């Protein structure tokens, strides 16, 4: 390769990416000298949409912020609403919520392990972990009736109870998964090519992790001992005993170890929850209108700390909802980790934060600092811009519009 700089665009459409996002890499040979991230391909305006819907509708909407950690977002949102309304959720309801959130963490981490394998060309790891992930998906389907968007939460508790027959099924699946996870730990620590590809890649020192605001397994793999479940217990985490897994490797290998370690902790937690779960109701009746007030809710999603802010104004619709998905906190560190790395490591470094771009995406507005012009457009300007653009291409909508009008009038 000649030693000149090449600009390589990865995305918005690229086999590496599961969601549209764009990375512009500047390469010198195989080395990366610079990188810029461009967000905004997948912005769906969920926060704004929440303001126009009732709390019950919002719950379903917020659950669809993320396809993988759907329970995380809905729980985080509902916790804030319940805090404003001053609702006391029954213990059994909280236990079931926690159970779902741990099962979700298991399926998310197994999914990540498979994706990581795929990114470094280790297809077998992908196939094995995703086969095993089916076990936990089946359990989630057994409890909630759904594999991905569980629809378990409701304001004031959960919508379904767990029956006594389900408990042995859950436990046996957890036993199998624990066995398989031990095998993956063995593979991860002993397979030479796997270790070679992961060690020393995407270095992030503890200082940088704190400074850039990394969260979740990304931060914990750099030795930052931080976990909302322990530091600010929500649901029933205060009554459960578990370890927060940290690692000092500060690279992708460390992130892998943290995630498989957390899997083992989650199995422990699921057993504890099923053992300690009290009897009683799972839900209290919630008012349709939430009194005025505001609340911030924190939640340890599989990808890191999720923060929701809800402001209520006394009606049945929230005045403002703000979502800070964990990937938004982690996406800044990617550019830092990629610098001076190899092109071949780009996929695994990006995948190592377990990105979820559609959760993160924001509408981006830029302002030119020289002339103060913004790239924002109001609706009539955008419409005019579109018509002009097409007429420059030789497509005239005037004729079509006239036809459409005559058709409507004749009807």
């Amino acid at each position: 390769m000649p030693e000149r700089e090449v600009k390589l665009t990865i995305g918005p459409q690229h086999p590496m990416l599961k969601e549209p996002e764009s990375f512009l890499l500047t390469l010198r040979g195989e080395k990366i000298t610079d990188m810029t991230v461009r967000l905004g391909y997948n912005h769906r305006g969920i926060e704004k949409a929440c303001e126009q819907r009732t709390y019950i509708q919002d719950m379903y909407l917020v659950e669809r912020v993320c396809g993988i950690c759907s329970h995380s977002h809905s729980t985080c949102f509902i916790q804030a609403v319940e805090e404003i309304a001053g609702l006391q959720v029954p213990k059994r309801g909280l236990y079931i919520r926690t159970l779902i959130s741990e099962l979700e963490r298991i399926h998310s981490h197994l999914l990540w392990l498979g994706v990581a394998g795929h990114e470094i060309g280790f297809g077998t790891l992908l196939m094995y972990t995703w086969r095993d992930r089916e076990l936990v998906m089946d359990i989630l389907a057994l409890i909630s009736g759904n594999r991905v968007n569980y629809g378990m939460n409701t304001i004031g508790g959960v919508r379904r109870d767990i029956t006594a027959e389900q408990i042995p099924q859950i436990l046996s699946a957890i036993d199998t998964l624990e066995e398989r996870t031990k095998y993956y730990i063995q593979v991860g620590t002993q397979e030479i090519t796997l270790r070679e590809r992961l060690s020393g890649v995407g270095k992030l020192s503890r200082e940088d992790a704190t400074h850039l605001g990394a969260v979740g397994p990304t931060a914990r793999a750099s030795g930052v001992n931080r976990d909302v479940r322990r530091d600010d217990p929500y649901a029933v985490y205060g009554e459960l005993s578990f370890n927060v897994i940290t690692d000092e490797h500060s690279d992708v290998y460390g992130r892998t170890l943290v995630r498989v370690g957390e899997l083992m902790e989650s199995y422990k937690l699921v057993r504890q929850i099923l053992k300690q779960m009290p009897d009683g109701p799972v839900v209290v009746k919630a008012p349709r209108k939430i009194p005025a007030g505001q609340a911030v809710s924190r939640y340890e999603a599989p990808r890191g700390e999720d923060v929701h802010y809800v402001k209520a104004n006394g009606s049945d619709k929230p005045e403002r909802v703000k979502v800070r998905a964990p990937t938004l906190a982690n996406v800044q560190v990617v550019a830092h980790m990629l610098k001076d790395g190899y092109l071949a490591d780009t996929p695994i470094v990006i995948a190592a934060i377990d990105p979820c771009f559609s959760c993160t995406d924001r509408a981006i507005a830029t302002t030119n600092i020289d002339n103060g012009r913004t790239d924002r457009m109001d609706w009539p300007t955008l419409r005019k811009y579109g018509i002009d653009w097409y007429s420059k291409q030789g497509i005239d909508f005037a004729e079509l519009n006239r036809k459409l009008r005559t058709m409507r009038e004749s009807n």
Partner: protein
Amino acid sequence: MTEALFNIFVFPGFLFVAVFGLTAEYVDRKLYALMQNRIGPPWFQPLADFIKLSAKEDVVPQNADALVFKMMPIVAITSILTAFLYMPMWGSKALFAFKGDLVVVIYLLTVPTLTYFLGGWYSRSVYSMIGAARSLTQLFAYEIPLFLSILAPAMLADTWSLSEMSVYFSTHPWAILCNLLGFVIAIIALLGKLEKVPFDIPEAETEIVAGAFTEYGGRLLAIFRLAIDMELVVGASLLAAVFLPFGLGYGPAAGFALYLVKVLFIIGLISLARTIVARLRIDQMINFCWKVVAPLAFLQFIADLIIKGATR
């Protein structure tokens, strides 16, 4: 004349190698799938892929050098087919054989990699160019170990001809055992030549889409893919002829059946290798080839030198 045409186009030429190549791809994919706990494709999948691709439109990128772009798949397939004519299949004698055919086969097997490079480079797309540069970088890493590991048994048999080599080994069966290390090295180098995991760096899907083949589509891609399948067969046949030259004295039919078994065995080893490892980085691959594989190949060569001196 008719016989020559039959040899070139039907057996052991194009038709036979094409069918064998597609079968080899099926066996490879099926084994890979079974080892990964999947069902895998049906037997006609490679043929179906070929037909589907052939039915599609050929698109030549605007910036590409159209002549080179269109020529390269054909050059690749031709050189592989030519190499196959020198492979002994039903005994110790190949259809065409002369003193020094081993060198010609090795040379002809290098040509496809060069066509991947040229095809990718003249596509003028960033992904293709990076993939092309990687193919060529990789070529320099695995060719030397491959040459050395094949040279060792050739030197032991004191000939440059594949047929004479198999004659020597059938009269000295113990000599096959001397080259087991060389066999392992040759398998590793063949993984590099065929661009399979852990050495699929030039077409690493998650990094550079399809590497040198990114801009290829339609018939041209179909030919390239067929060429890669045939390369698998020819590479495995070469290894079978050099490292597994046993059981050649039972007549053409048994010899041919045994040949198929040997080739499928080597393909099985390749599938196994790509199941159990992850893709390496290009710098790791070059380090591994030069610091581990090449010295081991030298060791094999020296060991064979000593054995030859001792048995004379």
